[in-house]
């Protein structure tokens, strides 16, 4: 008699498209893409990254978190018959018929070296470390290339005016993939400029809350020492009781 598959086996079976790779026989719809010029037939509905793997590419570079947070999989593509050069994160973009794809394995970019404690919190710090900031042509290519859809040019313009808060807030969701810098005709490295501006803003303008200062002093003075002596030696049974007796603060 054929043994019935366990639930765990059935789960493993149905998840296999993301755990062990896709089976060709399960695929109904196909598209043709061109990886660095070579044509491959791949299942429709995959990401660029998954479709390249399906085609036989094993990533060493250009793959990181696979969830849109790390910026490792910056990709440039053109679609057949279209003049437009487009940018994307390979792990977050659905593959489309006729994509001509190449990945950017590394973005050469100069990062300034500084000691955040010794810099002066004024507009000069950005120009001192990144004098090319003045070369911005306001062409908006950076904004168009941003896979996070940030207003990159706007925050660069804010940097030129020394508005740290605006740079910090508008650039906050940056994943530092480097596509803006690679496309910039003025050769700015927008994401490093933004990093410096955010740290300056955080360090000089976002002060330590009083409640944190107080807590640090309490710990330093050994306020909890006696309680710790008791708690650290508590048996599991005692801990269970302490745990059950905790009062939850109101919502």
């Amino acid at each position, binding site marked *: 008699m054929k043994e019935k598959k*366990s*639930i*765990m086996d059935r*789960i*493993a*079976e149905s*998840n296999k498209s*993301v*755990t*062990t790779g*896709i*089976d*060709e026989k399960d695929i*109904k*719809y*196909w*598209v043709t893409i061109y990886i660095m010029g070579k044509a491959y037939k791949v299942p429709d*509905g995959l990401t660029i990254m*998954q479709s390249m*793997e399906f085609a*036989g590419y*094993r*990533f*060493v570079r250009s*793959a*990181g*978190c696979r*969830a*849109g*947070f*790390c910026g490792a999989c910056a990709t440039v593509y053109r679609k057949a018959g279209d003049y437009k050069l487009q940018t994307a994160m390979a792990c*977050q973009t659905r593959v*489309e*018929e006729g994509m001509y794809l190449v990945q950017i394995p590394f973005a050469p970019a100069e*990062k300034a*070296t*500084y000691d*955040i404690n010794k810099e002066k919190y004024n507009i000069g710090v950005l120009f001192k470390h990144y004098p090319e900031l003045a070369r911005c042509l306001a062409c908006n290519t950076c904004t168009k290339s941003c896979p996070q*859809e940030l207003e990159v040019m706007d925050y660069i313009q804010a940097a030129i005016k020394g508005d740290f808060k605006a740079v910090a807030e508008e650039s906050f*969701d940056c994943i530092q993939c480097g596509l803006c810098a690679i496309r910039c005709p003025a050769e700015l490295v927008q994401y490093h400029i933004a990093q410096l501006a955010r*740290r300056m*803003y*955080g*360090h*000089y303008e*976002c*002060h330590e*809350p009083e*409640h*944190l200062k107080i807590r640090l002093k309490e*710990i330093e003075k050994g306020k909890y020492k006696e*309680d*710790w002596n008791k*708690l650290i030696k*508590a048996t599991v049974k005692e*801990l*269970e009781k*302490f745990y059950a007796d*905790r009062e939850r603060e109101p*919502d």
Partner: protein
Amino acid sequence: MSEIKYIRGYPEYMCKLINIVNKTRMKRKDYDPPAMSKEERKEVLNLHPDYAHGGKRKISIGQNKGDIGPNEVVDLLEAYPLIEEGEIDLSQIDYDVDILIIGGGLAGTTAAIWANDQGVSPDKILLTNKLRHGDSNSMMAEGGTQAADRPNDSPLIHFLDAMGGGHYANKPDVVKGLVEDAPLIMHWLLELGAMIDREENGDFTEKWGGGTCRKRMHACRDYTGLEELRVIRDEFRNRKILCLEYYPAIELLTDGEGRATGAVLWNCETGDYKIARAKATILATGGFGRLHIRGFPTTNHYGATCDGVVLAYRTGAKLRDVDTVQYHPTGAAYPQQIIGLLLTEKLRSMGAQPVNKDGEAFVFPLEPRDVEASAFIRECYVREKGVTTPTGMRGIWLDTPLIEIKNGEGTIDNAFPGMRRMFNRFDIDMRKDPVLVFPTLHYQNGGVETDPEGKTNVQGLFVAGEVSGGVHGKNRLMGNSTLDCMVYGRRSGIYAAKYAKTVKGRGKLSLEHMKKYVNMLKKAGIKPERRAPILLPEYRGKAVLARMIDIF
């Protein structure tokens, strides 16, 4: 050859199923199924991957012989090394440093900075990465970092939350370190210029986390790990500390008398190896999500393949709590591009309801994570009321439009900007349509046993972050992982620096431990079929692999 037609981001048949959910929404608005009784919970938990029959076995060799672990992990512990003793020339030392750090996520990068603060010069610290510096689970942490810094809170309460959450299997002295240093870590982050969410009066914005009895979750929008790590990495780069990328450690080195003295590093691109000699070695290699334990999708990054546990175990390091795996109930199940990705618990706490394919609410939305996950599995695989995606995956709906119905229009944009951006990329509007979810493999609860200084039982070998065991017991709470990385990154950096100063002369380099381990494998009758660490998961198409000829 035709492309799939999408309507509102979903294929047509799924769209029809969504209409059923839309129809029942207003009826469900004020109704949640009641929470399960203790007995009901016990029964449904039999479907949880940690408790369901099978999937685990005893470790047959080494320090933890006889302990239970997931098959996927034991497979790697019972695997042969990537190198053979004779083929490695240990006489040519490429990097001769005081401190070698393996893994550049939040833990490893923090360790490097604090070792440098102890007076170890930047050219005597080497941080090596398998991928790019910063490619890690840390980068993806959305929810936040716990720190007890409000007047009604204390490290003691934080301690109890963490111990209870970990089923009291945590090491108390290690948890004490975690919670006591938490306010200090917040202070350090501010010094470095990290932007942590604030109230209008300048206080930290602090939110609930599952299993806590105080609001102590500090966030940086929904990009907490990204902000913490990019600031810390920027500081690391300013200090000119030695850093290698695409150079995983493939074996540790010992002096033959039980002390760790460095590692064999491998250039992923050219294929040659380098020898790094170090007085102290810190493992910060992260977890094992990409082993896809029991065939589950994962929230983890590409390199989360259990390397550190494998390498440390061969040197005689003790493991603990590797038998428990954290599954998060709500991983994305559609679209294909984001399967496994985390959809925060906060969605349910703000009103999103789990719903089956007939549009019925079937479970209390805020059961403990393991119970909630099991109920989803039951709905999909026992009651057959899940929704099957075009790639064959099953999931249940998470009815996100209820969030706006219950809390007002605009709530999703304000509270979940990152998630909204993610679904928008695939034309799904989570304000108007539900999203499909299924449990996802999230975290390695245990690992290489640590102590309050980040030390292991192997002299000269330190651990920090997800690779370590003892901090979270059998189950980690939200917001304690990024904290763990920074607290034990810092501590391991400091204590490794102190230890390095006591080491006289330069350590001998040998692969004695590996030789011994291979002998144990042979003695146990384990055939040389598997090799580890695996470094990266295998996702290439099967048809291509079947016809591959290895020439270059």
